[in-house]
């Protein structure tokens, strides 16, 4: 798994590549925490190169969404979610908790 963060004026675009499972989810969670610890609560997560995500990754997303939405200070949105991952998120009932965007520009512009 590989994570790159790009800071924009109004939000951070965080690209996660590869596979997020119980082994790598702590590293994913840490990257998200690093953003929120820096007072960045508007996060767009680009999943276009994400191959796989288990519930360990979903939990990190949920915890971050809770943190970001507190006091209306921000939100986590998902960008370019691959079909397989979208289906798993739907099964877990997560699609109602996250706005999704088909392109990063739209996501970044939404904040």
């Amino acid at each position, binding site marked *: 798994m590989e994570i790159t963060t790009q800071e924009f004026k109004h939000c951070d675009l965080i690209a996660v590549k590869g596979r997020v*499972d119980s082994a790598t989810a702590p590293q994913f969670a840490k990257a998200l925490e690093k953003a929120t610890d820096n007072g960045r609560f508007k996060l767009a997560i680009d999943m276009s190169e994400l191959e796989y995500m288990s*519930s360990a990754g979903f939990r990190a997303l949920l915890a971050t969404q809770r943190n970001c939405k507190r006091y209306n200070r921000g939100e986590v949105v998902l960008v370019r979610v691959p079909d397989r991952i979208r289906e*798993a998120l739907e099964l877990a009932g997560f699609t109602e908790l996250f706005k999704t965007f088909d392109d990063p520009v739209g996501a970044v512009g939404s904040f």
Partner: protein
Amino acid sequence: MPSLRGAEAAYPFLINMPANIFPARFEFLDEIREMVAEVARVGGFSEKAIYSLQLAADEAASNIIEHAYEGESDASLYVTCDVKGDEIVIAMRDTGKSFNPKSVKEPDLKADLSERQIGGLGVYLMRKLMDSVHYESTRAGNLLTMTKRKE
């Protein structure tokens, strides 16, 4: 490892199948998913079904590592995967603490963000992704058997 009677009766071929032994650590989830994908691919399952099978196997193995072995580092996980007819059977054995997925409360998927439960999601996904999830616990260990038919 001693065999487990109930599952043998349901899936007699399981006892003749060599089980792959994995260290019960999260770093080996990749290899477990690869093993399942390989068997499913040869068995003619679709890419969509293969992803579901990998996810179910991952959630099952993650639960065993986290809850049955509670992070014990030198424990082993025995995984068997085979296609019979149009059905794939994934079996996992462990010698850790017994853990009954039935005792896991179904997460409330309608709950809003603040009330959404973090736990129980893995077991819920396993049940949704597979056609059957069977769990049994004996003195010899725990056996989880999951099946899925080709669509």
